[in-house]
């Protein structure tokens, strides 16, 4: 709803959404309310506010999607008569552990013909319960309340000179809780409830003084401002066990609480309470000038101060200039009638990045306890720097100088529109978490080293292929290409970083910012003799991957590692075609990425090699049945995550979006409604990826934890599959 009078305008809206995901126990309910008011108190004073309140409740399954294809599909979800008898009386959910109790005679019969057992692993070996059983015994809920408010006042001091102060807050409270029944995940896992909450408080004030002058064909706009942002986060985590019954799911029934963060390497004791905050203070000035809308000039300067850095490293200046020229406005261009408009533009600017963890510059101590005293001893509190990150007081802003140039062109009565942008940037003092020698007592530290060059081009083209009263057809094309190169990295030749499975990424001077790094493989080892007669690792066994001796010295060691390709695409592209025939419309978007290599972390899972045919077909089984000589047997031999084996071609092309609609005319509606449209949309109706790719979604990437670093990317694991959705909709206006 919106409306108002001359001196007052309002807008308010409310919405409710309910969405069910593709998995069980996966839903979201959302409520939101937004309201906005603008009031002109007098010709020179305006004020207003903008408030929104949102609530959402989300249910998320305990299982990742990948748990489904990590489960043997030949085992039933629920016991049937046969499995009940086979496992000795179990009923209900068929859990992996029920089958674990069965010993399978696998050795040769003994002298008396009795079966013998050797210690071979059971074919059913999984302590984990099947995902349906896990879902039935667990619940996970998250709620979020957020309030956003912003009030401003704008005062015109004299004509053309305005002061505006805008002050706002963004407060979000997000509690989440979970419960799992006894034995929910695997036999022996306790009844457990968790409660986590995050309180996020962000305060922002923006104050600007704006001067506007128009004289003839000259236009001048000056702006000076000051902004301050304070962000605080409070995190609380509680974990309770020892429930008398699974009928009560809240923490009040827990008898054991894990409050202290664990220090004994076992992950138990997840309780935490943290309350970090930070401030960003900025001053800015900007001048914009234009002459006859033909020549456009702009310059700005900004000073940012961040509390994340120590005194002396806190400030950074960010200047920028830009210029534009509407060539087609020149009198001498007016007679070219096929040209509708042409604009060329160029800019230079500096931007910054202060994205580091709280207190990365400061050495801090936390709790580190021990037990002493007679008998069982008492808990004695102690302190230590128990972070794995070494403080670095010297860190400061990362800065990027970027040059941009481009043009916009419209020709043939605006039937062909072309926009081309080229950019070139140098990032200095690259800010990232770098590994350090762990004999310092720490494994990583934030540091500013390195320079990276980025260059690329983006092309957008729009054509109106057919346009008449009954039929229009337009095409939008976009294409982008980007290349980067590491120019310098702290005087070193390279920096190697590690992901969650110890897989390596290398940043080497003169090459792309990062590349996958590890061993190149040449198929699998077939026999023990073959291993003994060739350079090999002590851990190599038949059926395992055979590593190439890249540094041909007759021995395999870490010096044989080489860069294995980068995680950046060769190019990306998209095309939208829109057709309108009378009241019908149809549009479809084809989109694709070409020439990208992904690291498929599913190789880590034992089950991938057991149940995913992409890893099973043509595999080595024995020297007599070596398969195609390329697919290893299970996970035997050298660690596959350190080789090129998990690297797969992540290129894809998809029919991203199709919209079909019918719009009723006013005549059809007999003026009873303002408008009515029915439509059908489909997402990902067709999706093609490379034969080389063995996962379920080439677009999925891990982005959290170590993967938030720009120096570690291209890794996926347990991705959510590409989902196809079809939506039917009716849009009514009245």
């Amino acid at each position, binding site marked *: 709803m919106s409306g108002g009078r001359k001196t007052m305008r309002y807008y308010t809206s409310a919405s409710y959404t309910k969405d069910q995901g593709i998995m069980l126990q996966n839903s979201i309910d959302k409520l939101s309310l937004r309201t906005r008011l603008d009031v002109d108190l007098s010709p020179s004073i305006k004020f207003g506010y903008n408030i929104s309140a949102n609530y959402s409740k989300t249910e998320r399954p305990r299982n990742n999607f990948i748990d489904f294809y990590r489960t043997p599909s030949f085992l039933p979800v629920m016991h049937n008569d046969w499995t009940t008898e086979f496992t000795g009386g179990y009923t209900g959910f068929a859990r992996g552990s029920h089958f674990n109790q069965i010993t399978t005679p696998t050795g040769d019969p003994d002298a008396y013909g009795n079966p013998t057992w050797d210690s071979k692993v059971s074919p059913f070996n999984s302590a984990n319960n099947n995902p349906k059983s896990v879902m039935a015994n667990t619940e996970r809920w998250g709620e979020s309340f957020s309030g956003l408010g912003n009030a401003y006042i704008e005062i015109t001091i004299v004509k053309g000179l305005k002061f505006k102060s805008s002050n706002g807050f963004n407060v979000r409270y997000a509690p989440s809780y979970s419960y799992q029944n006894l034995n929910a995940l695997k036999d*022996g896992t306790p009844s457990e409830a968790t409660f986590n909450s995050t309180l996020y408080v962000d305060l922002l004030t923006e104050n600007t003084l704006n001067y506007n002058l128009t004289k003839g064909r000259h236009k001048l706009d000056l702006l000076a401002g000051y902004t301050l942002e304070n962000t605080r986060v409070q995190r609380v985590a509680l974990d309770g066990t020892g429930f008398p019954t699974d009928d009560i799911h809240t923490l009040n029934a827990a008898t054991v609480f894990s409050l202290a963060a664990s220090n*004994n*390497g076992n992950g*138990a004791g997840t309780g935490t309470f943290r309350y970090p905050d930070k401030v960003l203070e900025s001053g800015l000035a900007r001048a914009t000038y234009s002459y006859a809308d033909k020549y456009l000039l702009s310059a700005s300067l900004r000073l940012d101060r961040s509390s994340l850095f120590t005194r002396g490293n806190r400030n950074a200046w960010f200047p920028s200039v830009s210029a534009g020229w509407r060539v087609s406005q020149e009198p001498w261009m007016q007679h070219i009638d096929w040209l509708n408009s042409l604009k060329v533009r160029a800019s230079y600017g500096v931007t910054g990045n202060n994205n580091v963890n709280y*207190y990365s510059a400061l050495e801090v101590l936390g709790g*580190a306890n021990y037990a002493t005293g007679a008998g069982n001893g008492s*808990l004695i509190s102690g*302190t230590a720097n128990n972070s794995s990150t070494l403080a670095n007081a010297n860190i400061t802003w990362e800065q990027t100088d970027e040059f941009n140039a481009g043009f916009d062109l419209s020709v043939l009565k605006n039937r062909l529109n072309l926009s081309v942008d080229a950019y070139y940037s140098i990032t200095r003092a690259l800010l990232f978490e770098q590994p350090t020698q762990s004999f310092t007592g720490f494994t990583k530290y934030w540091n500013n080293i390195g320079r990276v060059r980025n260059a690329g081009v983006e092309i957008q083209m729009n054509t109106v292929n057919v346009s008449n009263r009954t039929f229009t057809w337009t095409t939008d094309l976009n294409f982008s290409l980007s290349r980067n190169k590491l120019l310098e990295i702290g005087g070193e030749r390279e920096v190697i970083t590690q992901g969650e499975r110890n897989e390596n990424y290398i940043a080497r001077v003169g090459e792309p910012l990062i590349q996958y790094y590890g061993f190149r493989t040449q198929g699998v080892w077939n026999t023990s003799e073959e291993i003994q007669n060739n350079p090999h690792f002590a*851990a190599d066994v038949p*059926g395992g991957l055979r590593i190439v001796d890249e540094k041909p010295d007759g021995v395999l060691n870490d010096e044989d590692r080489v860069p294995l390709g980068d995680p950046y695409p060769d190019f990306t592209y998209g095309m939208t075609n829109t057709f309108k025939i009378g009241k019908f419309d149809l549009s479809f978007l084809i989109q694709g990425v070409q020439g990208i290599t992904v690291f498929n972390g599913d190789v880590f899972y034992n089950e991938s090699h057991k149940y995913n045919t992409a890893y099973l077909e043509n595999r080595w089984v024995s020297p007599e049945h070596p398969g195609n000589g390329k697919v290893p047997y299970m996970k035997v031999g050298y660690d596959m995550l350190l080789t090129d084996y998990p690297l797969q071609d992540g290129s894809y092309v998809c029919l991203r979006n199709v919209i079909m609609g019918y719009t009723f005319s006013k005549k059809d509606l007999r003026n009873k409604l303002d408008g009515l449209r029915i439509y059908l949309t489909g997402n990902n109706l067709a999706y093609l990826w490379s034969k080389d790719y063995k996962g379920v979604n080439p677009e999925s990437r891990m982005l959290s934890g170590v993967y938030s670093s720009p120096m570690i990317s291209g890794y996926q694991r347990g991705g959510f599959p590409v989902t196809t959705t079809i939506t039917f909709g009716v849009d009514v206006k009245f």
Partner: protein
Amino acid sequence: MKRFIIPILVSVLALTSCNLDKYPFSEVAANEYVKDATSVNNLVIGIYNGLYDVMYNEWAMTELRSDNARMRVNNSTSQDSKLIEQLDQLVVLTANAWVQDYWDALYVVVNRANTVLENLDVVNDDALRARYEGEARFLRAWMYFDLVRLWGPVFIVKNKTGADEARTMQRSPAEDVWALIEEDLETIVDKNLLPDAMPAADLGRADMKAAKALLAKVYMTEYKPSADKYAKASALLGEVLEACGNPASGSALVPYADIFDKNKEGNAEIIFAVRYRSGNVGIGSPFTTLYAPVNNGGNVAIGAPKQYNYPSNSIISAFNANPGDVRKDVCLQESYFNKTTGVLVDNANARYCSKFIDPDMTSEYDAENDFPIIRLADVMLLKAEADNELNGPSAESLVLLNAIRERARIPVYELGEVASKYAFRQAVRNERRLEFAFENQRFFDLLRWGTAVSTINEYLASEPFYAAYDYVVNPIAEWQTLLPIPVSVLNINKTVAQNPGY
């Protein structure tokens, strides 16, 4: 207009008064913290706290690589199994995550000890200052002792070391590491930094007995043949035995099962232990969960235990050589009783290391049992060993050896049975294996005696488990007794020398 300007200015000023010097609420900034004896004491506790991470993986670097323990099943390909298999067969990858974790954990303790040693000046009380210095030096020496035994030449870090300095550092020769260990421990002894016993409230923190015993073991382990190393060790061990009342018979000792009883912690046998505390306070012992049988249905321990450190056939045979040895039942079990079904489970899946099992544990990885590092029997057997190496068998040495056997309820030796230096040496070595099974001593003992390669190869060849693999488990060579320097170290500095063979 005034009525608008003022509230605006007030709100702007309120926000701009924010200070950009942000200090944490939930931690304490180190530079402001260390100011008195209490804060240094807290930092000393912090060093001990670092031992938990060391102990978590130490069994895998030592016991698992020896002939006492192995994997439970072969041809399993789960990720942990792969890491265990590498250690079990001594074919470790340079990227082995557990080796990395263990290396990191040792150096975390070293760093915390260095922090204490660099901040002693704020402690005004001389006695306390000496004690804190002694404890820090003891713990640092112990960590370097583990490092040099498992990796040979390592990085010597004696001061707070920044990332830039660390990047170009090289490994120091093993001699220098040994020298540092000796210097730390000899300083404690020479300057009398530690009391003979800790006050009751501090029971569990290192005292002079622990420092002397550790120094004696260092002397006896040092790779360089030195004429007086056994003599120096013997003298120190004598002093420790003196302080412990010179026990001369089995009955003068704490019964074997009581040493590890969680209700008798800090008993007379314990000279130094890593002390755990259950109750979900973050410092429980993980070994019940790591060692108890998988799928035991709560009959041995709750939760989903791992059944790591699985006793080998070889150690079982060694115990069975002396019927009635009370130590066997404490160290390992070959069956458990299923209370639900009333059946005795005695298949291969029921064998487990039982030394640190807490049947009353209420949440996973949160057992009570302390883990002994140095105990009286260790000192007695080291003394007997040192004296035998010095002067051959003696009645005094035999008393020490026989007291251990008497406590184990197995026949004592007559002097005639172990009359030669060789026979006595073999008797002590065999006794140490049984006495300290699963206490992370065996692998270090084998290294000390120079018998690691032959013993492990004989074991790999004779244990039927290894023959059941789909491939040939190869005998090891000398280089495999050292662990690889973690690849992460070489990733940062390619000029660091890797251990030979890796």
